[in-house]
């Protein structure tokens, strides 16, 4: 297992370098630059040139990348051009908000998704199954932007249970968590149900039935356990999403977070911040995948053997 973990970790190094190149090039190659967002009506083309030179944007792109990468390895993500603060400081300020929101939504969608998926599988083709599936279909097709506004209208405006927006109290977390979580519930529930139905057709389940165990006990104690492998895969892919998957929801609920920071900075072409945020998101996805692989390897020896 240790051998497997080390190999997987080493594989991340070239991936990280490739990701850093893509991130840097994408943001620099799209039209627009931060200086357009800084200059004032009345400033001259010469003043614009001074600003471009001040932020090193007149240097060859490759040189700019090399400087960024060198600083990256010393833990320096640079200073924001528009926001004028160290990027690391901005990320540290926003990341906890994203982790809190994404983490709670992840826990909610995992718990409720597995429970409803298992329920639908146990009561396959019953009204419970059809009801759960209908709700899942609704949850996965409603745009989160619209769902968020509906939540606000119902729970904040009509019932006045929760605040409309902001991040000032813990109650302000409830509606955004539900909005994001419901989408996750749909996915986890569907995968859980499909995996349980698949496992339910295997020989060992037939054997358990032959032994006289109750259907519900077989489903919940044996089938569900074996069906969790694909669910873990799906969940591991969603770990990266915890960090930056709530962009729209942060927007609707006027919450701080890495997603909001990224979108604002992208609109202003604040290169260092965009690069820093994207790098964080990429690292979260890479680490999430690594974690998922390691959990899978721990659960299934065939996965461990795949890297031998």
């Amino acid at each position, binding site marked *: 297992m240790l051998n497997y973990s080390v190999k997987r970790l080493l594989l991340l190094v070239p991936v990280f370098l490739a990701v850093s190149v893509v991130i840097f090039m994408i943001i620099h190659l799209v039209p627009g630059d931060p200086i357009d967002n800084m200059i004032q009506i*009345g*400033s001259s083309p010469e003043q614009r040139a001074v600003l471009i030179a001040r932020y090193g944007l007149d240097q060859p792109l490759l040189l700019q990348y090399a400087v960024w990468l060198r600083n990256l390895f010393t833990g320096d993500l640079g200073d924001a051009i528009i926001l004028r603060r160290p990027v690391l400081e901005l990320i540290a300020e926003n990341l906890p908000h994203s982790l809190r929101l994404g983490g709670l939504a992840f826990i909610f969608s995992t718990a409720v998704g597995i429970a409803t998926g298992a329920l639908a599988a146990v009561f396959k083709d019953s009204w419970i199954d059809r009801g759960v599936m209908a709700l899942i279909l609704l949850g996965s097709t409603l745009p989160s932007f619209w769902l968020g506004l509906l939540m606000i209208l119902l729970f904040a405006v009509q019932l006045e249970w929760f605040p*409309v927006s902001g991040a000032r109290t813990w109650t302000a977390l409830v509606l955004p968590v539900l909005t994001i979580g419901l989408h996750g519930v749909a996915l986890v529930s569907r995968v859980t149900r499909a995996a349980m139905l698949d496992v339910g057709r295997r020989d060992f389940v037939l054997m358990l039935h032959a032994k006289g165990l109750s259907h519900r006990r077989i489903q919940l104690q044996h089938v569900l356990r074996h069906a969790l492998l694909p669910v873990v895969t799906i969940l591991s892919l969603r770990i990266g999403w915890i960090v930056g998957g709530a962009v729209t929801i942060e927007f609707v609920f006027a919450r701080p977070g890495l997603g909001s920071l990224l979108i604002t900075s992208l609109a202003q072409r604040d290169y260092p911040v965009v690069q820093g945020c994207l790098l964080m998101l990429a690292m979260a996805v890479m680490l999430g995948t690594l974690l998922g692989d390691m959990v899978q390897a721990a659960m299934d020896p065939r996965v461990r053997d795949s890297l031998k």
Partner: protein
Amino acid sequence: MTSFTRSFRLVALAAASACSMAAFTPAWAQDATFVLNSREAGAPTYNPIKGTKLNIGNNLIFDRMVIQDADQSFHGQLAESWESSADGMSWTFKLRRGVKFHDGEPFNAKVIEWWIPKFKGTENAFMTEAIDKVVIVDDYTVRFQMKNPDPSMLLNMSTSFMGIPSPKSYDALGDKFGVTAAVGSGPFKLASFTVGQQTKLVRNDDYRWASDLSKNRGPAKIKNLTLREIPEDSTAFLELKTGGVDMLLGVPTDFLPRMEAEKSLKVVTMPGTEVFYMPMNTSVAPLTDIKVREAIAFAVNQKEILTSIFGGLGAEANNFLVSSLQESKIDPKFNIRFNPDRARKLLDEAGWAMGAGGIRTKAGVPLTVKLWTQNGTQFKRVTEVVQAQLKAVGVNAEITVQDPASINAMYKKQTDHQLAVRAYDYTNADILDWFFSGTRLGYPNVSMWNDPKAEELNAKAMKGSRTWEERVTNFKAYHEYVMSQFVFAPIYQPTQSFAYSQTRLKLPDTIRGIKMATQSIMDIEVK
């Protein structure tokens, strides 16, 4: 339970309620939360000297020398009076006495001597570049000796970038000024600031020097003021409706009917500071032909756009400048108003004959132009209506919607665009120089217009005026020439609107200034 015990409990409960009411009501009653106008959202700093994007909070923390009223007149804030020499080569300001910064430091002539040179090398340097040096006449009088006359001096001094910080705090905080703390002499002190989220301000209880645009000369009536940023308009509206916030400093036109339907809310509209217009790329055929440009300009039906898209709120734009500016009052013959017959006649004269399918052709080539705009509901709607209006005279306009952050860079390619629906928000005639100067081709000069006579008139307006009156005359001449060359089509002037909770706030009868700002906030009471 005995009746005595029951009565005792009731009295105790009532007393506790009364105490808690007494304890909480005053604090609550003096607190207010405003939502920033989306245009001001995302301001990264409260450093007026170095900041390139500032919000309303800046003018609440920092006082300026002068401020401007809606009629464009100037009123003293930290300056009590001022005068310019006849040749425009010096300005003398008498400063207000008894003013203290939030850190207790006094405001006097030495502060101005320290302040003006601080702009050198910053993004805002152009604001003070005409000032050669500051001479201290006495403790409360300063004289600016000029490198060249600058009739915009008072206008510059009234902008948010001219908020005066405390020298002691500014120098002590260095680059952190405006980010971790901001110290001015304004009616509010900065308590906390989270970029993109909110700014918390507390009243400056020593404030006694508001301008004469406020009835209340100080301190402010609101004790704690929170400025929130809510990017989604629907969320902001629901916050106001449910009492989560007390005022929206900007209301999109789409939301006005819904706001007006709410009895607890009041919507106030003021003359706008924005203009929608359509620049034409004069360097690309067929727009190199002035007759085609003129035809396109007269094909735009401003009234139809005003009524069908904006419900009649706002005004038609018939020239380039906001109608409150004196320089917008040009000879009426230069104004552009919808005239489809003239448009058709001009296109005929230019050799574009009506072809099959209602699109004009010349030598077998259809009259097709690229029409760009940027993402945003209003931009898209206006562009679609303009497209239909051009079609009505035989011009086929193909719309492309661009990302707002990319579109300026795409204009800089200079030849990719032909027509574009754009808007600007600015209340100074020097916007003409910004958008039409031959030194800024591509962007901001999207019209790609480089005309020797225009450059001459521009230079005269920008640098050759000694007094305000001269500047107005020179800019009028430049404006008229721009209009005569049909390098853009004027479209629409929006109003600016804000909405507030009538149950929570009492506003002054008249909102002074160009927009809802410090001078009116001084007079706002929380009920």
